[in-house]
């Protein structure tokens, strides 16, 4: 406490342009020496009026906008939105489309978690190398997405009652090959980081999140499970055809940054398990429900909330329909925004360099936080 400025706190504005703040995110940090005493997140720099736009475009027209929420995982965003509209209008989805959705969602989870590990290490100062290894693997999955949907990140792939394009055997073969090779990358990546003394020193006992606080604050996803709470919407809701697959839900003990890091590595292994079951099982058949009209789609009056386990947590879309061509109310429940609310609680008492690591371990994408 020798560096105290006459007992006053030093206020530092971190961001919104700092390269490791994961986008345009600003934190007003009050420091006592190096120790964080107060932290106030400031967001809204990437606000694009997503919900208002959703209330003014047709139901179909909102689908490409959902890609831009969490631009790392457009497939799961599409799925969550399609799921809530399907609940609203009571649409059945063909078997093959359900399998495709599971396959694409798990591939999305793989690439999201892989790049998150890379970013997290890059936040700790391992510039470049781990991030590039992660991006190399991610690129292979993005190539799959591109050859299927036409775009690497803005896939716009799901439609109400199914999917847009069918896959062929060659695509499934490529997917199988990538899934088979992915554990090799995971082994190598774990060897690279998990025993690294610097990583351990920077992450263990840093940014602890107690399970009580995590539940009260509405935290979901890998962050909640790292605190030891067994809550995975794939198991709890069993949406889509997830109950058919056997997979485990990894849980953490301490809720610190190391647990959150490990959680991603373990979840990738479980995703591979799901993919290994889903890829050979995929049945033939139509990929879209022929009863659903593409144009002039008007669901009946009512409301629906569809939620899925996105790679970052619970992603939900709440829709109220007044019978018109566009929703009366369109609301997104973004996982990274709600997970960000406990940032101050996790950072208090840590040095300012740990703030970056803790922020990195939350796994935020500003496109989703600000909407």
């Amino acid at each position, binding site marked *: 406490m020798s560096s105290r400025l006459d007992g006053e706190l030093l206020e530092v504005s971190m961001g919104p342009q700092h390269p490791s703040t994961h986008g345009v995110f600003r934190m007003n940090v009050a420091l006592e020496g190096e120790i964080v005493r107060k932290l106030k997140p400031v967001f809204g720099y990437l606000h694009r009026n997503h919900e208002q736009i959703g209330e003014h475009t047709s139901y179909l027209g909102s689908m490409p906008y959902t890609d831009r929420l969490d631009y790392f995982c457009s497939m799961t965003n599409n799925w969550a939105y399609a799921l809530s509209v399907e609940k609203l209008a009571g649409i059945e989805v063909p078997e093959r489309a359900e399998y495709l959705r599971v396959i694409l969602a798990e591939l999305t989870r793989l690439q999201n978690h892989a790049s998150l590990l890379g970013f997290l290490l890059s936040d700790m100062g391992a510039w470049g190398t781990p991030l590039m290894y992660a991006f190399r693997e991610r690129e292979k999955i993005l190539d799959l997405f591109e050859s299927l949907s*036409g775009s690497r990140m803005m896939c716009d792939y799901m439609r109400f009652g199914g999917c847009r394009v069918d896959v062929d055997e060659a695509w499934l073969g490529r997917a199988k090959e990538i899934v088979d090779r992915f554990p090799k990358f995971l082994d190598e990546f774990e*060897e690279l980081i998990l025993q690294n003394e610097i990583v351990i020193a920077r992450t263990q006992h840093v940014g602890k999140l107690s399970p009580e606080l995590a539940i009260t604050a509405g935290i979901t996803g890998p962050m909640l499970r790292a605190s030891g709470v067994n809550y995975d919407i794939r198991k709890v809701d069993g949406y889509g055809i997830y109950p058919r697959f056997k997979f485990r839900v990894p849980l953490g003990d301490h809720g610190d940054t190391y647990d959150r890091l490990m959680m991603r590595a373990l979840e990738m292994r479980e995703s591979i398990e799901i993919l290994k079951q889903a890829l050979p099982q995929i049945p033939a058949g139509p990929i879209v429900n022929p009863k659903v009209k593409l144009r002039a789609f008007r669901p009946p009056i009512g409301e629906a909330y569809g939620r899925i386990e996105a790679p970052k947590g619970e992603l939900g879309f709440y829709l109220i329909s007044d019978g018109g061509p566009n929703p009366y109310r369109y609301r997104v429940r973004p996982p990274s925004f709600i997970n960000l609310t406990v940032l101050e609680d996790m950072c208090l008492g840590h040095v300012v360099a740990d703030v970056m690591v803790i922020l990195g371990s939350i796994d935020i994408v500003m496109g989703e936080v600000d909407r």
Partner: protein
Amino acid sequence: MIGMGILKGMAVTLRNFAGSYFEKDRLITVQYPEERSPLPENYRNFPFLIFDGNDPQAGLRCVACQICEKECPPQCIYITKSKDKKPDYIGKPQFYPAIFDIDISVCMSCQICVEVCPFEAIKMDKDFELSKRERFDNLLFRKEQLSKSNDYYHKIHPVEAAAVDKNLADAAAVAEAKKKAAAEAAAKAAAAKAAAAAAPTPVASPESTSS
């Protein structure tokens, strides 16, 4: 022992460094302007209009129905319908777009215009090297810039284009068959009428009453 983890990590880095010279799996970059990886069949970038035949304006498949304009989520399409009509691929007189603009600085490549088009007139292009010196007028594509031939479409999306051509040919054949059937029916009716008129006695035969 402290430091072993770091050394192990360094070994991984070394393996990757050396491996990047031998294993294709570890070196996936291409030297872009010189080398190009082929674009997948489904790749999409910005929409364009298809014309049949040789004249880009006369052969446009677009009939200015303005469905894409209405469905476009960011509202980047602007269409004005023509006053007169011209025959389309099955010879039916149709309107054509007097103005058809797409602001590709607004377009978000969602492909919804392609999906809703009932005439197979608008498709996604694969041209991605579109940097321009000026960002307003140069990125507003006019009808003349957007019109591209069916051969070009076949070149960029071979599988899809073949399916589209088949659909259109089927539709044209159905229309042709309908026309023929209608003409035949008309001829038959006329012949029956003539036969009925030529018959000397008005004794009603079942055929002539029915016709």
